């Protein structure tokens, strides 16, 4: 699912609410019918909800492999097993040859791949990607889109916050549009982009 909206619409706040970084003052957050509202982020991660951050948050002075191994500990008791799982994920996400580099030495695209790998290492059912294409050039956006599609094919439900409409249209089955903290439209991508409320939210009154 794609989650879009103008800046300040509340998209990242939704992610923070779902993943426990912000406690809801009202309303519900449910995962497969179970309420997870108010739980701590680590507990929600253990239930199978993983995320990336709008501004990447690598463990900067650790190696790429150690970044992912730490996350793999959630599902693997022993270090050798966790390291094997981390190695496989790094290969899958195109970071196979960079395992020994420090995370802070990677370029932005690779740091975003690393963050996805780290999130996937927790074995999630749902993966929340917060602007994974922010700051990337067009060819990198294409590569990132393919990566996200590959993750979906792996059986993980993906919720994608993005401003790159091309990627949203390509990847999403459904799109939800937010504005000023509220849902203003939801449906198939092709229908949502023609919705007058969506056009007005992005381009202002009278543009629809």
């Amino acid at each position, binding site marked *: 699912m794609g989650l879009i909206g103008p800046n300040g619409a509340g998209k990242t706040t939704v992610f923070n609410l779902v993943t426990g970084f912000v406690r809801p003052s009202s309303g519900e957050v449910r995962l497969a019918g179970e309420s997870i509202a108010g739980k701590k982020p680590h507990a929600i991660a253990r239930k199978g909800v993983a995320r990336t951050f709008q501004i990447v948050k690598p463990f900067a002075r650790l190696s790429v492999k150690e970044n992912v191994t*730490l996350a793999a500990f959630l599902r693997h008791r022993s270090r050798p097993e966790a390291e094997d799982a981390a190695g496989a994920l790094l290969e899958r996400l195109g970071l196979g040859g960079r395992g020994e580099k420090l995370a802070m030495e990677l370029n932005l695209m690779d740091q975003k791949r690393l963050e996805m790998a780290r999130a996937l290492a927790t074995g999630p059912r749902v993966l929340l990607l917060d602007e994974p294409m922010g700051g990337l050039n067009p060819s990198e956006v294409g590569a990132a889109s393919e990566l996200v599609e590959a993750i979906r094919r792996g059986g993980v439900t993906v919720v994608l916050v993005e401003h790159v409409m091309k990627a949203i249209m390509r990847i999403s089955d459904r799109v939800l549009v937010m504005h000023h903290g509220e849902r203003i439209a939801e449906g198939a991508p092709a229908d949502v982009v023609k919705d007058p409320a969506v056009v007005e939210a992005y381009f202002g009154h009278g543009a629809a």
Partner: protein
Amino acid sequence: MKGRGALAAGGVALLAAAGLPLVVHNSFVLHLCILVFLWATLGEAWNVLGGFAGQVSFGHAALFGLGAYATAILYLRAEVAPWWGIPLGGLAAAAVSVPTGLVAFRLRGPYFSLATLAVAELMKLVALNWEWATNGPTGFLITSLPPLHLLGLPMDWEAKAPFYLAALAMMGLAMGTVAALSSSRLGAYLVAIRENEDAAEAVGIDTVRAKVVTLALSGFLTGIAGGFYVLYFRYIDPDAVLNLGISMEMVFIAVVGGLGTVLGPLVGALCLTFAGETVRERFGAGHLIFYGLFMMLVIRFLPEGIWGRASKLIDRLSPKEARPGAPRG
């Protein structure tokens, strides 16, 4: 040098150090060594929380003083010998650190540091005012220690050797604990927390629990050092064991030596103890200026600490063994 090689080398070094009193009989030299071991223990204790987990505490004097007072009170009021009182003092410090951590770790960064400072000041006020428990500003004086025989030999409490060996064992325990932590899953979690706490939570690490367990470990080591202080110096009052200077000294030793390393606090304790004593001898009361200058120079030009820089050079010169970014020796 990593793993078993480092462990074996450490064991050999400790055994060698244990033999020093057999060849060195100068009381002042042994006294300096005892101070180094005591401060190295305190530096290691602080390093567990500050170096590995990145949680800067300015209040470890509270745990030091708690261990000291627990040991003194158990001995003077309940006739519990200090060698039992010291570990009990450590446990008392660990026990107090748990609820403190559960509250303080809700805060991050400088707010956490200030909270620890407040706890230490609170502890000092308690010690000054709860005279029924702590003797208030008068403190406790231990005039004699109970007899103790080890391997059939009586301990001569007027000599330095028994305290030297006790301090060495305490430091060995502290360093061994830090070495074990650095290669454990908890140690890896602490490094993740230090690097980015939000990301650590996002990958399923219970950061508060990890920090509280670490604080308890740090508290235990700090508390036993406090207990040793009572055993060795035989006098404590709130000013002696609960002052901010002790907390700051622990920070300096870990920072100057090398945060997040096993040997760093020992190197820091060696440098600061000998630097402090040297300038005190030459400049009397003005020694604090040179002490402060030394620390500023190290922090400015060797931000990773003396051992931190040295171990990087050693790593560069020797074949690559361990993964980058893992806690160093």
